[in-house]
């Protein structure tokens, strides 16, 4: 799971948050300090193979 910083109290907003051992991720998510990164899919449509 990848986390993104949402508060400057944790780090630079927009950067990935890499938790140290012992960090309570649930509390950070609940407090809005970080969010889970949503993976964006490529808009490219796979074309059918040419025969």
């Amino acid at each position, binding site marked *: 799971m990848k986390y993104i910083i949402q508060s400057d109290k944790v780090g630079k907003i927009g950067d990935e948050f890499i938790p140290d051992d012992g960090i*309570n991720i649930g509390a950070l998510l609940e407090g809005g300090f970080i969010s889970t990164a949503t993976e964006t899919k490529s808009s490219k449509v796979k074309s059918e193979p040419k025969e």
Partner: protein
Amino acid sequence: MATSTYLSNLTTLTVNAVSLVDQATNVVFTNTKEQLEATAFGDTSRKYTAGLFNNECTMTLYQSYATSETYATLAALVGTTTNVVASITDGAVTKTFTLTGCYLEALPVINASLGELSTVDITFTGGVYSVA
């Protein structure tokens, strides 16, 4: 003469990776190794030996219910374990004290007195102590 007057010497205070240094007015970080009695018959004085570490960090924070402040940081930590980090800078020396996996038993959610800034006193207990 050795003195430590705290003005801006506390350079870092994080609870669960969230910086609370701008809300803190007091921090006490205590490294404790429990004292176990080892006195036996025949001894004329009490003797003690070291037991387990039982560390503690207490702090006083201004209460703030605003986004990303005191309440938002601590509310979900009650009854769980987390990390607390405090750094002190004294001249060219910086010491960073860490409690890893310490437990927050209680959080005063309202501490209201007429005409005063609200503060909360919290205590983290246990955890592994380290200094760097």
